[in-house]
């Protein structure tokens, strides 16, 4: 799916500003941003529930979605929902195809109960299953683990991982629970004020951030010019932060060769939380950890 230069304005104020990215079937992409960053609007545009915007979205004709709260009929049973949202799109709901998923999500035994008897977490799970009906190529999930306890969240995320792989479904997922995103996503997009601020791959779990403080700016420049350990995340007058998989001993050996002495040295595992804090820090109140 190609999201190409999307701009959305609401009464003059820009919610999304020429935002572009792509994602493929089978890939799970995380969307992180503070409240009001434009995540839900972006998801609604991808799901085509918002029609008026500038830019284009390609290959979004087959998208399942759960955006904001699950939209359900309180007087219908869970099973009636699955049957209804299959039938109106010309398909027949086959319970056996979804049995494993429904059992894993602990929905199977309550399918004949009316939705008004469901907890918020159960409604969320039903909303997720509805989004997976009718063989979508992509699924867009906005805060899918809302109202779920930790154990259930992990089960749901595991299922999503499995679905993405087995059904070759591309999943775009937003959550305020950074650990959720970190556990499930291949790639994370940081979105702020309608712009993509940064993109991070989370495929390599051994990545960490090295923070090196040099004695002089010249030594820093020499190091930057010669190093091949990884990409530079941040640098200032005497300090540099590098995202790398290299071990500390290799870095020290390299510094010795160059005859450079460090003032300070720290290493930190690359987690979504510390990347988030460096990219979007300041609004810590929005994060649910």
């Amino acid at each position: 799916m190609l999201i190409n230069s999307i701009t959305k304005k609401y009464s003059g104020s820009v919610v999304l500003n020429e935002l572009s990215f792509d994602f493929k079937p089978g890939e799970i992409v995380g969307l992180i941003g503070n409240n009001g960053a434009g995540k839900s609007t972006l998801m609604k545009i991808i799901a085509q529930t918002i029609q008026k915007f500038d830019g284009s979205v390609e290959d979004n004709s087959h998208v399942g979605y759960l955006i904001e709260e699950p939209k359900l009929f309180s007087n219908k049973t869970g099973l009636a929902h699955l049957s209804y949202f299959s039938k109106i799109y010309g398909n027949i709901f086959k319970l056996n195809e979804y049995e494993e998923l429904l059992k894993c999500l602990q929905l199977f035994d309550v399918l004949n109960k009316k939705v008004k008897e469901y907890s918020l977490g159960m409604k969320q799970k039903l909303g997720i299953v509805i989004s997976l009906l009718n063989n979508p190529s992509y699924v867009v999930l906005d805060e899918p683990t809302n109202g779920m306890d930790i154990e259930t969240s992990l089960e749901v995320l595991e299922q999503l991982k499995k679905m993405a792989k087995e059904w070759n479904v591309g999943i775009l997922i937003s959550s305020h629970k950074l650990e959720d995103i970190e556990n499930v996503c291949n790639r994370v997009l940081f979105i702020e004020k309608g712009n993509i601020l940064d993109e991070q791959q989370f495929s390599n779990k051994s990545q960490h951030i090295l923070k090196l403080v040099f004695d002089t700016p010249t030594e820093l420049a020499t190091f930057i010019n010669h190093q091949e350990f990884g990409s530079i995340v941040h640098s200032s007058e005497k300090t540099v932060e590098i995202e790398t998989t290299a071990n500390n001993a290799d870095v020290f050996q390299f510094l010795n060769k160059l005859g450079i002495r460090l003032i300070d040295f720290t290493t930190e595992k690359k987690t979504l939380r510390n990347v988030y804090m460096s990219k979007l820090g300041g609004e810590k109140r929005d994060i649910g950890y």
Partner: protein
Amino acid sequence: MILDIKSYVSYNLSELFKRGSLIVGVLAALGPAILISYLILSGTTAFTIKHVSNFYCMLGMLAAVLHPLYFVNRDYSSKTISLINNSKQNRKKYVLANVVIALCVSLIYAALGIVLLLVTKELGVPGELKASFLLGFSVNVFLLVLTFFLFGYILLLYGVRSGAVYGILTALLLFFHNILINVLESTNNVFLSNIIENFPGYFYPVMVGSNPLSPMQYFIGCLTLVVLLVLVLKKSERIEI
């Protein structure tokens, strides 16, 4: 994913039966008509077959308009419409699917009305029952149901609460035309009389069970229907939930 109109219509029509609301609506339509037929046959009143048809339409048309509107109201109030309004094509198909439901409901009510009139005539209720009247009755029911359904639909799309929409439709179908009749009877102004007589809010509820409409009224009725349909389609195209 493309909305399947046939599946949507069949599922929701069957729900109308299963929930029992269609039965309640039909009983509400038939009740007064059967009662008046009984009174006519027992010689208590001097009414005719057209009174039977009028009494049938009194609550019958209100029920027939509210049945299809229930689905639109249900989908918008529960916001499940956002699971359907996911492409321009589906937005259009959703409107058309509900128009088809309204059409089916109007056909059911027209058919039941005709059966009722034929049976009561057979039982001896006086009055002429020409084919032209039955045809006019069917067309009137069809036009009235679709027009008032689309009017209610547009109100819902503009965010009018369902209780208010049902209230407005009830007032229009049961009471408002009586005010217009009083105005007509008390005025000598030909222009005003013409306007009232050609106003769909007047001629549909008054004439639906009485007579075929005039060519001018049919023209205005069809034009109103087209305008309302275009308005509903345009508004549905833009609406964001």
